[in-house]
């Protein structure tokens, strides 16, 4: 396939660092779009603030780069007004689950037909490595110089608990899985989340002595555990592991379908 067909070539080079996994996620997204044969005009990509949120600037779709944490709120309005658009939200761990956490869980509850792809690198990379809601306990960040005292969110479990119709987690090392999950998420007529673990050597790896991008990806390879296997493992055995796989895949009416029912009821009553 021709990646360049989907990219805004004149916007290159991108801002992502050497060893960053974000470009790998972008390529997964483009491969799936190409496979599904979606027209560029029919796709809207919406983001908030952060490294991941620069993705829309590089792709030749209808693109919207919003305020910090609010991408899902903007995307919700757009999807309701233009239901035929494929609305994709790209977000980071901080953007989606700290400042934007409320929108994230409520969009899941509402089951609005959006796909949110979360680039989870445990850190606020763009602004210099501050702790995020997924930074593990004890890990260092510029705002946690002695180690992070906060417990992390498990984003996929959060999405699951909040009612999302599709939730999966992969890593940038596991490209095949990432492609598959993104495809399933795109085809889901409801709120779908794909969390992709991605290394940030500059702001996270360096500070925590986890090596360069390649070494961090090797860590992903060694420490990923499928969701089925993880069920048989103890808490202790799962320490430091990345659980990958599909957590939720269910059919339920989405927000627009339920609103159609509201319309039918309202019309009956007001006849």
């Amino acid at each position, binding site marked *: 396939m021709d990646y360049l067909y989907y990219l805004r070539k004149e916007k290159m080079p991108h801002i992502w660092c050497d060893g960053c996994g974000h470009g790998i996620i972008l390529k997964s997204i483009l491969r799936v779009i190409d496979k599904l044969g979606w027209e560029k*005009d029919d796709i809207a990509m919406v983001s908030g603030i952060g490294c991941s949120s620069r993705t829309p600037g590089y792709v030749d779709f209808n693109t*919207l780069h*919003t305020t910090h944490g609010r991408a899902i709120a903007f995307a*919700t309005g757009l999807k309701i007004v233009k239901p*035929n658009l494929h609305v994709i939200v790209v977000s980071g761990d901080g953007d989606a689950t700290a400042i934007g956490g*409320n929108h994230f869980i409520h969009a899941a509850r509402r089951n609005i037909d959006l796909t949110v792809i979360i680039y989870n690198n445990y850190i606020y990379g763009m602004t210099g490595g501050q702790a995020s809601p997924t930074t593990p306990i004890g890990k260092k960040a510029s705002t946690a110089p002695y180690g992070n005292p906060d417990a992390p969110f498990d984003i996929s479990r959060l999405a699951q608990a909040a009612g999302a119709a599709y939730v999966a987690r992969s890593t940038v090392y596991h490209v095949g899985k990432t492609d598959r999950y993104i495809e399933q998420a795109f085809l889901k007529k409801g709120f779908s989340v794909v969390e992709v673990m991605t290394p940030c050597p500059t702001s996270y790896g360096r500070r925590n002595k986890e090596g360069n991008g390649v070494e961090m990806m090797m860590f992903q390879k060694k420490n990923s555990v499928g969701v089925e296997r993880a069920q048989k493992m103890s808490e202790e055995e799962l320490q430091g592991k990345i659980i990958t796989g599909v957590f939720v895949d269910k059919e339920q009416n989405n927000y627009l379908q339920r609103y159609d029912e509201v319309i039918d009821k309202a019309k009956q009553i007001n006849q």
Partner: protein
Amino acid sequence: MENIPNPNVRMWQGNVACAEGAIAAGCRFFAGYPITPSSEIAEVLALRFPVIGGNFIQMEDEIAAMGAIIGGSLGGAKTMTATSGPGFSLKQENIGFAVMAEVPCVIVNVQRGGPSTGLPTHAAQSDVMQARWGTHGDHPIIVLCPSSVRETYDLTIRAFNLAEKYRMPVILLSDEIIGHLTEKIEIPEPSTIEIIDRKKPTDTPENYLPYKMDDSDIPAMANFGEGYRYHVTGLAHDETGFPTNDPKKIRAQMLRLNRKIQRFRNDIVEVETFNTDDMDVLVISFGSTARSAKRAVINAREKGVKAGLLRLKTIWPFPDKEIEALYKPVRKIVVAEMNLGQIAHEVEWATRREKPVVRVNKIDGEPITPNEIFEAIIS
């Protein structure tokens, strides 16, 4: 006797008139969050939209509601949200986004007492400066203030028209008294209502510049999903819509944002005068307080004091020229407002402090009475 009432004559609350005005203006998407004293606007639209092909959504918070109406507007709908003090504070960042990205939308603030939770069920007019400067950065804004239920209907429509025409958010600054006042209204025939829609691009998608610098100062706006794939960001951007750090390009766009309001301010600013031809005392007021001011002017005239009223329907951009045209012959100016002098300060500036400006202020949730303004006129 058989009573056959005129079906266009209704007893409506200000908030109902706002919702109905929005519908008349072509608004078909509302996102909101419940807050007193504005919730009736959301409630009416929740009831009406499903029947007329609109979409209502109750969002998880005020910030989300503001974000959703920007997203909806980019999809091509006329969109609105409604709130009051605390919610208006929360919406500010995204209002700034709509200013920067030039996305038309209407924000209704039914003012209540503040700061903080303040007086949820009582009126204030203390968000005048917040409406002007609430979000960060240096940018213009349009703010309209209705004084009656009918005017709430009319100015809601006008807010949409100005938002679409100038490609920016417009704030309808109502207050608890007007929002909750039930009053007689004769609904105008739809054919008599002027409706303005955003300028659509005539360029091909390849040549389309979403923030084009041309003589109009107002770039054409394409809707998402209609063949024009462009980029929208709150970052400083150039004509293409993509971020830039080039000071020349940034300056050009920022000055255009300001110019589009300065240049068309005569189209935007609306005031109403009452008994101003031969006046000695100029009373300036807006919103619900202007009703008390009008009664005070009538009462003063009965006592032989030549008072006149200037009622501000647009408060931003500030009607400085309109004040300038009136104040020279008067002895003094009385400014009545339910805050501690936010408009009075602007009036002093517009009149270069050449005349004494007497302030009639109240910040306890109670309305300013006609007598309180009357006393200031005759003293």
